[in-house]
């Protein structure tokens, strides 16, 4: 087994573990005070103008009408169209949009390579002139998604890089790791592009590599362009979870658990239990108006100055 294969197995294993570990860490943080931000799309009939259930007299006596469809529509707009960047930062969207679409195409490409590799292992030839109709479809889709993915992602990442360099507002807010991240992405995408154009237009080599991983067979004779791309890709998978580039995870929480989280504290509900528990937490804030070492509940009932340090 080659070093590249070993590192690929490791990166494929480590990437989801790190991502999930971070998600679990965030999810296990305690209930927080409400910090809603409107519009909230699941407010049925009101989300278009940003209204909430607080617009109803005796809102707590009325059933809460939530629209899952409207929430899903909003999510789709964000995920597919990168809508908030389109709305609030059009010059950046010109690159952010192709970059993200390029990434989605490349994720699709990976899935198709896996499917193709499994078919190959099962003895079905995946090519444009295969006898198997599905294999022909897989081959065509692989080529389309691959072409779109490499081109869009390279254009997008170059655009983002130049925006950072040329736009003063962006440049002054950029730190070293932003450039490192963009260059790392560029290296992976550009080598992928080169490998595709120069040595692997039909993806037979890449698919062969994926097949070797699936079947635990050694692989030899990878062209330098493809091998470089695969090494870089594995490296990126290790590095990625440590960066803000995992913001798809963050975004799930910032939207669903903060901005759109409007669950009222109704007696006997899960929220009330969580609040009760949190009020029992001990605090060590030191200011003189806070009773250090007491519980939140106790501190909230203690008015006037407290002598914390005597």
């Amino acid at each position, binding site marked *: 087994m080659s070093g590249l294969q070993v590192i690929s197995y490791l990166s494929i294993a480590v990437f989801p573990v790190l991502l999930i570990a971070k998600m679990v860490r*965030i999810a296990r*943080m*305690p*209930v*927080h*005070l*409400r*910090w*809603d*931000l*409107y519009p*909230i799309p699941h407010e049925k009939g*009101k989300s278009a*103008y*940003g*209204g*909430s259930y*607080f*617009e*109803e*007299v*005796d*809102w707590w006596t009325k059933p809460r009408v939530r629209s899952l469809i409207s929430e899903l529509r909003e999510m789709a707009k964000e995920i597919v169209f*990168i809508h*908030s*960047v389109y709305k*609030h*930062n059009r010059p*950046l969207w010109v690159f*952010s949009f192709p970059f993200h679409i390029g990434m989605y195409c490349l994720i699709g490409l990976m899935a198709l390579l896996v499917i193709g590799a499994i078919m190959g292992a099962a003895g079905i030839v995946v090519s444009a002139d295969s006898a198997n109709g599905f294999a022909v479809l897989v081959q065509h889709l692989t080529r389309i998604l691959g072409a779109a993915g490499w081109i869009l992602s390279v254009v997008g990442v170059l655009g983002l890089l130049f925006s950072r360099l040329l736009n003063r*507002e962006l440049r002054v*807010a950029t*730190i*070293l*790791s*932003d450039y490192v991240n963009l260059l790392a992405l560029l290296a992976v995408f550009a080598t992928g592009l080169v490998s595709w154009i120069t040595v692997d237009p039909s993806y037979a080599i890449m698919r062969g590599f994926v097949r070797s991983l699936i079947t635990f067979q050694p692989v030899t004779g990878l062209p330098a362009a493809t091998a470089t791309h695969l090494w870089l890709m594995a490296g990126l998978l290790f590095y990625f979870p440590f960066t*803000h580039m*995992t*913001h798809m995870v*963050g*975004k799930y*929480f*910032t939207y669903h658990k*903060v901005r759109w989280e*409007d669950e009222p*504290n109704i007696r006997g509900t899960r929220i*009330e239990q969580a*609040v*009760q528990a*949190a009020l029992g*937490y001990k605090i*060590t*804030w*030191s*200011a003189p*108006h*806070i009773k250090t070492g007491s519980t939140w509940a106790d501190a*909230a009932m*203690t*008015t006037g100055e407290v002598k914390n340090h005597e």
Partner: protein
Amino acid sequence: MSKRRTTLKDFSHKPGQLVELDRRQFLPLPPPYDKWDTEPEIKPLSEERQRQLECDLDGISAFKFPRPQSEEEKRRLVEQFLAGLKKLFERENNWTFQQALFLTMEYCARCQTCATACPIYAESGKMDIYRPTFRSDIVRRLYKKYVKAGGKFFAVVSGNDIDVTWTMVARLMELSYRCTLCRRCAQSCPIGVDNGLVTHELRKIFSQEMGVAVEALHTKGSVLQLEAGSSTGMTPAAFLDNVEFMEDEVKERTGLSFKWPMDKAGADILLIHNAGEYLAWPENPEAFAIILEAAGISYTLSSDIVAYDGVNYGVWYDDVQLAKVALKHMETARKLGVKKVVIGECGHAHKALTVIADRVLAGDLNIPRESSMTLLRDIITSGRIKVDPSRNDDITTTLHDPCNLVRLMGVVEPQREVLRAVSNHFREMTPHGVDNYCCGGGSGFAITQDLNFPDFREIVSGRAKLRQILNVFQDIIGPEHKKYVCAPCSNCKGAIRDMFAAYGLFERCNILYGGLVELVVNAMPEIERPFLEWDWH
């Protein structure tokens, strides 16, 4: 001294005042304020004050924080600051916002989409220090360096390093009062990162750990409210006197004679106003009393300490103070046995008690809270009182959306329905609703009246609102037309009052500001004399 550009290195190290506020660099205003000499000045602090107080950010002082006298004192303050920073990320100490803050620290893509959304940054002519992420990035670097494991090493290799000096902490302290917490930036952020939250949490380090806060919010704010009963200093006895006075005034202005319900156990509603209304704008609680009396609503006011003042300044700077005040409000509601608490025209009181404090109220203190906007809408649409909008026909109206009520709570339409019912000449500002601009007085700015801070509020943080007001009335801007900015929020009214005074808006343009209920009473046919006293404002 640079006017707009600032590096982080300068922020930590450069001695003296970092930037100068020059109104000629700000975005120009529409007529009649399109010449620089028509604008008020930003006054520098006296030399003596500059010597005494930390004002090295932009020459403004909100904190009035005395300059430390020794290196030892500076070191101690920096240590306290860093200790507080760590507590923000601890489960027990900061369960209230830990998750939201963690997300904001971890996921910013530094795309600057939020920058265009911030009125303070835009109106200042894009001064670096006011960029929403400028403040957050400092806090983010501190978090990465001092809170995260292996921080000191990774901070250097990732380019996140930052030098912590007292100069930096003192500037950060003031910088936490150059953001109104309007959260427009958060609304535009593709990732859902919240720079307004960073301001909020930063203020908590100063208050909850170091025991330092803006006087108007803490010592003369929540502390005074908890001790005397109101942040205005009004005691229960003075409150009762005021109510008597207002009963008389209602009789004089309208001929209606009735007692205001006070401490009435078993009423359906406990109505809580911002106590500033009783002193600065008594016509607002008077109009409420007239409407609720005419509609036959079962309600009561309370003369209990704290319960006659709906303000809760804790929501801007201190979670513990927030909880203390909210508990006091709700203890009175429980004692009176009301079905619900209704909050008068005060945006932050709405948000504090209805939304934010929802999760500090447990058991029988968790009595429902509701906006007066919905109650008023119901009273009018159900025909419980009659209104004739033609009685307001000589006035063109517009509506200011208080951030707390609208973007942060989703109460958008009820006040519009009421306004449309009582005004035939209502026009919307651009943008409005959840996309509105802050009045400039958010997060405690409206009540911070010390030194030259009001200049910042009137000329920088309120500038976007002033522009909107001038624009919406631009075709009738002359003094021959009566114009009314309806601002259903006590704090917004305070900020607008001061801004109007600084610019002479009433005198030059005949624009008056006021609440919603005053327009409603003005439209009630059974009241003969106009309730709005235009020239006596």
